């Protein structure tokens, strides 16, 4: 991959394809199942995070509270409101952890959030901590990394359990999160590996016990910082694996984990899964032949989009005209030299990205709900894979990840092509 193909943002004005620190932190925290997140901010920030959560994941598991201060409190400080918010959160939810996300306004105002947190720690029998998440302080992925790193502070040294792993970088508000995790667990179990705790999709107590695992799996590179800390502090080694989109990534996932555990890989399991995939794709092989070589764009975060693009190119035979990484992580730079895409955009401005997709003759988009209008303008089907997905739900057992996910992805992709109204418009 020569560098001429990598494009960085040109202008100053930025129609962002990524979110701010607050959202990265809130996402990480939402996977601590008995935690409450307090958004210490003016109403907009809280409303935004609440909407993302209510539209994009389990609608009955929100756990996001606003400190709800008013404009008038911007002058005298909103520490009182924050104190009330923490008290009320404890009263109503009895959480194990309360995390205060200190946003732009109180940060600039100079609220003494640390002071409030210290005082409340005395008062209520739950852990409380705060994080600096001013919008101007960095992008979402940094907020995510810092939050996971913060969680390591609560972890306790303990005996290692053999063949036990933690999964790091799992985000339970992605479209297929729950079924992806099931499939990943099934794959690991097939190799005699058990999952200790998931960062983040575990109770606070389980997260504290994370050092019991004998290996950390860093999914797609997300949460690498916390894995490094855990290696240093608790001597838990880690492997960075692909997010297991497709057959090859799934096998590679198992290989790296096995290698990390010094285990032999169970080839029989893989053969069985391969056979199952073969049997399913045989049923639609004519369509698969037909859509081979479709020109697509992949627009998603660094922890997922590279691996999806690789699957689409290598296994379905698609032409990846544009790979747009909307949000980096610490592995992104290493992956920029890979070669299954024609053009790579890093954290692009939406205006520039749309222009790029339009000139490249993209026929299908793999993205988030935010690519909906672009897809409409291009007349290209949109397959929603990446966060945030706000206009599609998944409550069935239908992963995109792993061996089963290979079948599900293939099905959805074929359907995205053949089951729209295009035929009628054409016939008109």
């Amino acid at each position, binding site marked *: 991959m020569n560098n001429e193909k990598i494009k960085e943002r040109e*202008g*100053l*004005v*930025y*129609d*962002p*394809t*990524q*979110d*701010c620190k*607050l*959202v990265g932190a809130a996402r990480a925290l939402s996977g601590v199942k008995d935690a409450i997140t307090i958004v210490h*901010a*003016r*109403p*907009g*920030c*809280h*409303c*935004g995070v*609440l*909407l*993302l959560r*209510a*539209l994009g994941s389990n609608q*009955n*598991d*929100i756990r*996001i*509270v*606003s*400190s*709800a201060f008013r404009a008038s409190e911007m002058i005298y400080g909103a520490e009182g*409101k924050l104190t*009330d*918010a923490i008290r*009320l*959160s404890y009263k*109503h*939810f009895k959480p194990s952890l309360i995390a205060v996300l200190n*946003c*732009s*306004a109180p940060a*600039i*105002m100079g609220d003494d959030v640390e002071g409030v947190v210290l005082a409340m720690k005395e008062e209520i029998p739950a852990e409380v901590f705060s994080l600096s998440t*001013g*919008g*101007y*302080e960095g*992008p*979402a992925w940094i907020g995510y990394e810092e939050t996971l790193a913060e969680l390591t502070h609560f972890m306790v040294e303990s005996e290692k359990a053999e063949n036990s792993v933690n999964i790091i970088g799992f985000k339970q508000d992605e479209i297929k999160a729950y079924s992806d995790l099931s499939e990943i667990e099934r794959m690991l179990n097939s190799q005699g590996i058990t999952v200790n705790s998931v960062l983040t999709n575990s109770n606070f107590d389980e997260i504290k016990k994370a050092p019991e695992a004998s290996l950390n799996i860093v999914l797609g590179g997300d949460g690498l910082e916390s894995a490094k800390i855990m290696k240093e502090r608790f001597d838990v080694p880690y492997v960075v694996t692909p997010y297991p989109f497709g057959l090859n990534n799934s096998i590679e996932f198992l290989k790296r984990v096995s290698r990390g555990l010094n285990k032999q890989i169970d080839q029989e399991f893989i053969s069985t899964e391969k056979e199952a995939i073969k049997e399913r794709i045989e049923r639609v092989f004519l369509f698969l032949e037909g859509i081979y070589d479709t020109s697509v764009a992949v627009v998603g975060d660094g922890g997922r989009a590279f691996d999806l693009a690789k699957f689409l190119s290598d296994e379905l035979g698609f032409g990846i005209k544009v790979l747009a990484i909307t949000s980096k992580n610490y592995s992104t730079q290493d992956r920029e030299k890979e070669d299954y895409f024609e053009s790579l955009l890093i954290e692009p*401005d*939406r*205006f520039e990205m749309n222009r790029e997709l339009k000139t490249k003759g993209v026929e299908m988009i793999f993205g988030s*709900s*935010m690519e*909906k*209008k*672009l897809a409409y303008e291009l007349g290209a089907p949109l397959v929603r894979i990446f966060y945030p997905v*706000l206009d599609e739900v998944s409550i069935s057992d239908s992963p995109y990840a792993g061996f089963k996910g290979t079948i599900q992805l293939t099905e959805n992709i074929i359907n995205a092509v053949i089951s729209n109204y295009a035929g009628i418009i054409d016939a008109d």
Partner: protein
Amino acid sequence: MIQNTRGANFLRPLINAYNPLPIHGITAIPGKISGALMLVNAITDAVPLIHGPVGCAFQRKINPFRPHASFYETPCTDMRDLEVVYGGEEKLRQGIKETYEKYHPALIVVITTCASDLIGDDFKSVIEGIKGDIGCEVIYTAGDFVGKSKPIGYQDALYAITDQMLCEGLEKGEIVKNDCSVNIITLPIHNAALKTAEMASVLREMGIKINKICFDHTTVKDLYALSKAELTITDYPLAGIRLMKEKAGVDYYATVGLEKYRERKEPELLSPYGIEGSARVFMEIAKRMGKEGEAEEVIERRKKIAVEKVSGIKKDLEGKTVAYSGMGCLHSLEQQMLLRDVGINPGLVIYKTSGLGLLLSMDAMEEVRNITVEWARKYGSEPEVLINPTTKEEIKAMKEKRVDLAIVSSLNNAVHEYHKEGIRTFNREDLMLHYQRIGFECPVELALRLREALKEPQKRSPLLCMLEYDTLRVNLTPEWAKLADIFMSLRGGVVGDRC
């Protein structure tokens, strides 16, 4: 029996899908940026420029007022630490220039954020400094023009337009009036074009021209032309509209006469709906425009047609016992349409103050309640009134009264529980969201829809009945009820954004 226009059938279920989301003053308040974006988005050739960090642009893409219709274009100045320390004016200046070069809009609306507000950027002088260098209009909205009027960003942005664009031109005295014409301005979330079609047609028939309807494919040019009208018709006298009167002499007429009601306490003033309500509103507009003579004939003729149509349907509704829930909200329809026009017979009226509490004080609520009962009596019914009953109690009462149809809100009443018990419902929320409007056709449509609801097959065992709900806020699960409780406690009773 009701025909939809081709190709639009998806819209009702799509909008409804996102409607139960309990935000808007229940668990959250959309910030000012969202409101401003709603307005900018409704102007086809305008582009927003959010002066703040990425989050203020990215999260705001989700439209809290219409979550099914995102704001796909939200460029921002990508404010970082550096600007927070040294100020963001230069970045804003550059940003405005670049925005013009990229998007070639007719208008850039700079939307400020907490961050830019707090660091004290002087938006006004930045804009004044650069305006001459680029080929379009630039204004800014900072959320501080209109006080607490909701939805704050929308109000503020409309005010900014009036103040910074329209009144600018006015000072030069260049307005050529569009004689005997009116503007119709409603919130963009209210489907302006759809809901004002009949009003426009009635006014035209009276000889009143329609200068502009906002917001319906509105352009910047249309905005400039607003000041050509003699009168602006609006639901509520938004700050921007009041300013237009003050500075450009375009008087306004508010269809919901909240101000007058506070003086005169006549409940009719709150309801511009139904045959009489609409007739009153049209006549008042005509008077303001000096068209009483023409108006009388038009209104009488249209009224007659509507009355005839409704009475044809009424027969099928006669003898049916109805329960309805008190509206609380000012969009109230029961008095004018249900009782007077359609002539339903309420056996039961239900009040849920948990919902109302958000919107009106306890006194005001008592007032509304009294009005409701009084009206029912006037039309010959003596309804039982339930205040904050549990769903069980409601159902028990409905069964005792042998209620044929419960006209309730899917947001405040556990309609699936009613259905499980064999009680048919009519969703007030749906009417309000999609069909309610000023005019003579609406009561006819309501009568038709009520008749259909009476014939609708029973729904026997909704999956939603499997879930637990809060006993008071029957549309919220315990989880959400907790969030609502916390929010209420912290805000100490906010005024919602819905109405």
